[in-house]
């Protein structure tokens, strides 16, 4: 009798121990088809967006070369146009801190650290142009590279200069500024190329195959990324921080995105929101006609939460509406009427509990790794 019990306990315990560490389960025919979701997101949203960024950065590279060969105002304007096109695409890819992007060592902000930390630290750039000694791979230079650094280099005015162009022509460090410009562009291209190549060569299949329910499952990562990007990249960085929501004592106009170009902060915010909406609804990056495949909305509908899908999409629409009412140039908006910016923030904020509480609960994904025991 006792032996039977002991044997029984050992067998069951062995099963429980082995199965709890198991990562099996690749196709889920009867339940929700995660493979289809991950495939749609990878093939129709993430990879095309990164590839588009690659081609837009190539245009930035061409424009940079033309400008360096002939440092004219016209060529600088052409570079500015190329920069803006790439910056808009960036708003779509910034969500996906996955695979190679996650491995770049960008710290808390992930690969955003190498592309879009603002406000840019002008003193670092000027010092770099002057001394020629800098390393864009160190954390010190996270706020002196990527799109914000280009924004300053193309549109900003260096100390002692009178025009943006002067940096590259009459400034005593004009050679240093020119080299820095090239280095920033090269760094962005090389990092993005690594990310694209990794997706295409191997990470796509890893990503799609990993239908694990755990923390490291692809869906769980994607869910965390969309929530984080909405909260941090979009809500806080673009609207909240400039409006002075997180700090004591007034607005912070110098923290708006594209501070030196000025009249595009709204356009960039709207692109970021579109990127998040498209992921939520599974809309292909390249599609003109809003063709949608499997994504968060599909998954929620599968779980009979159409109400939540409607609610979240309504919140997105309200946010878009609020942003549309703002000035193209957020620094102007803040000086004209900062209350309107705060009001826009409140509307955008209202979607956060829907994503972080309701969607999280419905899909039961893990936000931030909490590894204690449960009840």
């Amino acid at each position, binding site marked *: *009798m*006792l032996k039977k*019990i002991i044997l*029984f*306990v050992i067998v*069951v*315990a062995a*099963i*429980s121990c082995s*199965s*709890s560490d*198991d*990562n*099996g*389960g690749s*196709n*889920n*025919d*009867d*339940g*929700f088809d*995660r493979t289809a979701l991950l495939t749609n997101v990878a093939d129709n949203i993430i990879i095309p967006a990164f590839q588009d960024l690659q081609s837009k950065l190539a245009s930035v590279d061409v424009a940079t070369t033309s400008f360096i060969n002939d440092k004219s105002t016209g060529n600088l304007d052409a570079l500015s146009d190329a920069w803006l096109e790439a910056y808009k695409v960036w708003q779509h890819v910034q969500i996906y801190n996955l695979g190679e992007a996650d491995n770049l060592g960008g710290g808390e902000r992930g690969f955003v650290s190498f592309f879009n930390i603002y406000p840019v630290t002008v003193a670092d750039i000027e010092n770099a142009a002057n001394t020629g000694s800098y390393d864009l791979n160190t954390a010190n230079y996270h706020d002196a590279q990527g799109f914000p650094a280009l924004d300053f280099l193309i549109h900003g005015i260096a100390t002692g200069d009178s025009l943006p162009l002067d940096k590259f022509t009459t400034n005593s460090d004009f050679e240093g500024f020119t080299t820095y410009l090239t280095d920033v562009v090269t760094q962005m291209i090389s990092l993005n190329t690594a990310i694209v190549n990794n997706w295409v060569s191997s990470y796509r299949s890893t990503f799609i195959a990993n*239908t*694990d*329910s*755990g923390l490291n*499952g692809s869906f769980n990562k994607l869910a965390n990324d969309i929530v984080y990007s909405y909260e941090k990249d979009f809500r806080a960085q673009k609207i*909240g921080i400039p409006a*002075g*929501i*997180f*700090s*004591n*004592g007034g607005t912070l106009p110098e923290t708006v995105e594209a501070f030196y170009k000025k009249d595009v902060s709204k356009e960039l915010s709207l692109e970021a929101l579109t990127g998040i909406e498209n992921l939520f609804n599974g809309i292909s990056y390249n599609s003109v006609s809003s063709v949608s495949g499997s994504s968060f909305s599909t998954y929620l509908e599968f*779980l009979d939460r159409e*109400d*939540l899908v409607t*609610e979240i999409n309504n919140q997105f629409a309200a946010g878009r509406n609020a942003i549309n009412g703002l000035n193209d140039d957020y620094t102007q908006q803040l000086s004209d009427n900062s209350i309107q910016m705060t009001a826009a923030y409140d509307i955008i*904020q209202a979607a*956060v*509990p*829907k994503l*972080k*509480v*309701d969607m*999280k*609960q*419905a*899909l*039961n*994904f893990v*936000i*931030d*790794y*909490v*590894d*204690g*025991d*449960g*009840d």
Partner: protein
Amino acid sequence: MLKKLKLYLDTNTNAAPLAVFRIGFGAMMLASIIRFWSLGWIDKLYLQPKFQFSYYGFQWVKPIGNYTYLLFALCGLAALFVLIGFKYRIAIISFFLSFTYIELMDKTTYLNHYYFISVLSFLMCFLPANAYFSVDAFLKKTHYKQIPKWTIDVIKLLLGTVYIYAGLAKLNSDWLFKAMPLKIWLPSKYDIPIIGETLMHKDWFHFAMSWSGMLYDLAIPFLLLYKKTRTLAFVLVVIFHVFTRILFPIGMFPYIMIVSTLIFFDAHVHEKILNVFRQLLKPLKLKVEQPKTETYRFSNRKIIIPILALFFAVQLVFPWRYVLYPNELFWTEEGYRFSWRVMLMEKAGYANFKIVNSETKDFFYVDNLDFLTPFQEKQMSFQPDFILEYAHYLGDHFKSQGNQNIQVFVDCFVALNGRMSQPYIDPNVDLYQEKESFKHKNWILPFNDEIKGL
């Protein structure tokens, strides 16, 4: 009646079940402490947080820096001494005190399981668990083969209480008629072999699991008590707890319960288990003089019996205290803890704190992760007592930074068992002015739904 009681208290029984229980308990606790330590949780849960959420009245219980490791070491050592039955009384009291201190340090980590361990170890302080097959008995050269029957029955009573109260708590409309929260939890376990893809998302399976869980909790103490059903009951215990272990991250608890329920078996089963241990100890060639065999007698029974009677009275009454509070228990959580309410809710919240200067009306929002660990933030976001304590912490913090006329408001949304999230705390109440007490917190907004049942 009184005569019967006296007769019962004088009845003796074989000491083996209690000895096996002591060994099992000690071993499980030692393993738990080692596991907790090796997973790095002492640092992560107690040393890294800048701030601890305290139980009302126990604000003085705090982690003690790196000495916290010493506290865990003491707790583990006490568990080892309990296991071998060496200086048992001192060991079990040390264990109870150190373990309870650890649990009181931060209520973020509250689990019914930990509370169970505290309660059980308190009870064990009064039991002669070292009477037989222990180092104490070996050194004293006296084996008490017979001990009072009630010393084993109280453990059964405690186990039965835990199960039955856990079962009663499941008698509510969410659990039984909506299969909540299992309907949320189970489908996300799709990657478990075999059943993951076939059962976990099926509606009928959620209901089957809810109802069988409820029936299991209510029936298992009785099935374990009756000899005819006992073996079947134990098989059920193993299946149930192992299944929960597979599905949910509940650590050592399933194993602790499996080992604990062995106490329901007859003494001859435990003698066989002890014989296995005797075989294992043989190579040590302990010089065993034939020990004296005596019957254990309590010298202080007159004090102990009333203490334990009071202890069980409190155990039986305390879980019902929630009826004294208005509104839905699951929503307000007033009277929720220490009541064996296990796995009843999938609750999540979002709390956005706003610091306002009441004079200038200037305000700013707080990033919770500047002050809390992600785990603390998660737990804080849907529990009113946490929200209040944190609001005071924030108020004090910003006051010390030189801010003036501080008001603390919170925008908080909570979703319960798959319902759409709704506002949780009155956003117009300055929490910095509210005080913690056992009274109802009238700044919790009402729940827009009804959950029927106990």
